[in-house]
């Protein structure tokens, strides 16, 4: 099982490494979103500081959607999905492997965006542990949901645009929780950031369970 998961994840990362889409294309895009906001509120550093948590997650959502799209584009290209279906790898492993691949790429994206908000929005980090926990939970939830909805939307020509439509409402709670937890970690909100952080882990766990249980037939196209 673990072996299969790693196999899939490594393949995705290798494709990514060969085409360098994440770091080359998606990360600048995310940075653009941050820069634009910095422009939009240039007069008011206080506002930026307040909104930094939310902006970070909006940028992750934006870039992450592109990543998921690409992860499935690679599979639908040249009929690869059929080969995927014909392989002996069990569906839950496929699901976890794809999620792991996405997870690592989103982490890379966050490693670019994180310093971005620190520099551009002038935030101070009060609670490193919470920050890391929230980032981990949010990224997990995002990857798992993304792969689950990605496979649902895959196999159709319109997948590129149906995916965000399905993904965004499901991810809204993740976005909210991530923002709140980050704001607590930045010391701009007194609320219980840990509750929000744990919420994300719960979301991730639920979707992981659903995904592992249903990926087998979600993979079938016709």
């Amino acid at each position, binding site marked *: 099982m673990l072996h299969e998961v790693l196999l899939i994840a490594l393949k995705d990362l290798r494709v990514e490494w060969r085409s360098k889409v994440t770091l080359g294309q998606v990360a600048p895009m995310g940075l653009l979103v941050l820069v634009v906001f910095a422009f939009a509120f240039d007069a008011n550093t206080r506002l930026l500081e307040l909104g930094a948590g939310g902006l970070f997650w909006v940028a992750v959502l934006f870039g992450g959607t592109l990543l998921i799209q690409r992860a499935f584009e690679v599979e639908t290209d040249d009929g690869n999905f059929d080969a995927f279906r014909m392989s002996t790898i069990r569906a839950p492993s496929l699901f976890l492997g794809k999620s792991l691949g996405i997870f690592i790429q989103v982490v890379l994206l966050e490693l670019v965006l994180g310093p971005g908000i620190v520099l551009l929005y002038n935030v101070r980090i009060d609670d490193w542990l919470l920050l890391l926990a929230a980032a981990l939970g949010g990224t997990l939830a995002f990857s798992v949901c993304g792969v689950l909805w990605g496979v649902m939307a895959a196999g159709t020509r319109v997948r590129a645009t*149906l995916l965000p439509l399905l993904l965004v409402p499901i991810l809204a709670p993740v976005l909210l929780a991530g923002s709140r937890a980050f704001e607590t970690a930045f010391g701009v909100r007194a609320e219980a950031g840990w509750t929000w952080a744990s919420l994300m882990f719960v979301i991730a766990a639920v979707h992981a369970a659903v995904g592992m249980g249903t990926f087998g037939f979600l993979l079938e196209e016709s």
Partner: protein
Amino acid sequence: MSPARGNKYMTASPATRVLGVVAVAAALLMALLGLIVSPADVVQGQAVRMLYLHVPSIWIAYGAFVLTAVSSALFLIRSRRREDSGRHHDRLAGAAAEVGVVFAGITLVTGMLWGRVTWGTYWQWDARLTTTVLLFVTYLGYLALRRLPADPMIRGRRSAVMALISIINVPIVHFSVDWWRTLHQKASLSVGRRPEITGEMYWTLLYSTLAVTIVASWLIVHRYRVIRLEELRDEEALNALIASRLREDE
């Protein structure tokens, strides 16, 4: 193609016709009660009449989405067996979701109009309002997923999974007023608590709920029927196509 083919799940029957008549009558009575009989509110004035559409609509939408989820669960269970693959449940899920989306839309529209009158704006970033719009869009996505071309069983399972995940939004909307500090009304009717509104308003609201339920049931029954008829039409067309393929080898 005759609807009277005696299929177990065809729905044209005297009972549904009666239901239709009752639905029309109930809606008329609801308008009468809501617009004329019930009094204006002390605080809100005439605008309170929006209540009789606003609140029952979302409750019906909740109900419809729960129906979607339950049918989807049944479909997932039944579709494992080859015979009686549970298509019936899939159709019901689709019909209920469509009607639910319509009623959630009605709540949104009436709520926005109401907000314009009482809060002075169409929209507030209030947890209840935001979660409601997310609920609405989630089910729009569900309907979009249902429309993707795919084998009916595959599509049914796919959308069933989505319906089961999406249902989580219903309690979120309902409890949003308790979980977040909101501008929006807290629950005024709930089991085991004294209602906060009184008299004619209370009864009118209850009655409206009944009326909207009847209308919604009628709609669901007929959407179901249309979906079934569409399937029969497709089957018929398919049979004709198969026949014409057989004729290819003249």
